[in-house]
């Protein structure tokens, strides 16, 4: 990065004197991400990827999924998929530590493996809050 930034300045030597040309406008360079960015909205991406299946979702499903994401800001972005009239969010650490949450627009259900031989699951109506049992299960599966 330093090397590239310094190359924005061109130093020209002419007949024993030196002059500094005007620097190139760095805006176009720095405006283009130099790394692969995480998805800005993984739910939108999942809905796009689902194509026609996304149209079969309950109208509230995407909002509910986004609410759950916002209620768990400490976790990394999950894998988001649209499956069987539900949006699923998955946090995968390893095969014995994995949390899957499904939102169908009315209810929230979860299937979690919170350590060896410790399956946890449940389902409740979703009312803009994460059920205590779901939060405990997800936390147990994703804790460092």
């Amino acid at each position, binding site marked *: 990065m330093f090397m590239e930034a310094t190359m924005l300045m061109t130093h020209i030597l002419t007949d024993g004197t030196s002059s500094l040309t005007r620097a190139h406008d760095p805006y176009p360079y720095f405006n283009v991400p130099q790394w692969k960015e995480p998805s800005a909205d993984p739910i939108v991406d999942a809905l796009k990827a689902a194509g026609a299946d996304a149209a079969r979702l309950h109208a509230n499903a995407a909002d509910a999924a986004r609410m759950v994401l916002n209620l768990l800001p400490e976790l990394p972005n999950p894998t988001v998929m649209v499956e069987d009239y539900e949006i699923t969010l998955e946090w995968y650490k*390893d095969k014995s530590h*994995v949390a899957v949450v*499904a939102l169908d627009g009315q209810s929230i259900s979860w*299937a979690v*493996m919170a350590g060896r031989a410790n399956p946890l699951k449940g389902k409740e109506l979703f009312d803009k809050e994460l059920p205590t049992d779901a939060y405990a299960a997800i936390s147990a599966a994703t804790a460092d």
Partner: protein
Amino acid sequence: MHPADIADSERLVIFVFGDDMKEDGAHWRAFMPGADGERSLYRSEGLDFCEVAALGKDVARQRPDNKRLRGWAVISASDVRKLPGLQLKVSEPPDGHGIIDSWPNERMNKVSLAQSLADDAATIRFPFSP
């Protein structure tokens, strides 16, 4: 030739394709039933590593999605039967083929059972695709 019934002590093979193979083993999706409501598997008694790999390549060739064979999960019949509701059945041909059926209707209950199967399974993971 396999016995008519699957014994509790038998080791069963579920082939794992594409992204369903993770660094630490088979992802729970590899154990989920298909649209027919069944999870296909093979009985591995009497088969050595190369024979199981050859069988996996045959299965891979028959898949419409072109996903690569990444290895296989090995699970005992007793580990399947201890999970509530699931049943193991012989489903030949081909020889040695079986299924896990009687999955619950609700998807997340299936996910939970598949997570338990993945948790119990040992995994043979190819460092490359054969």
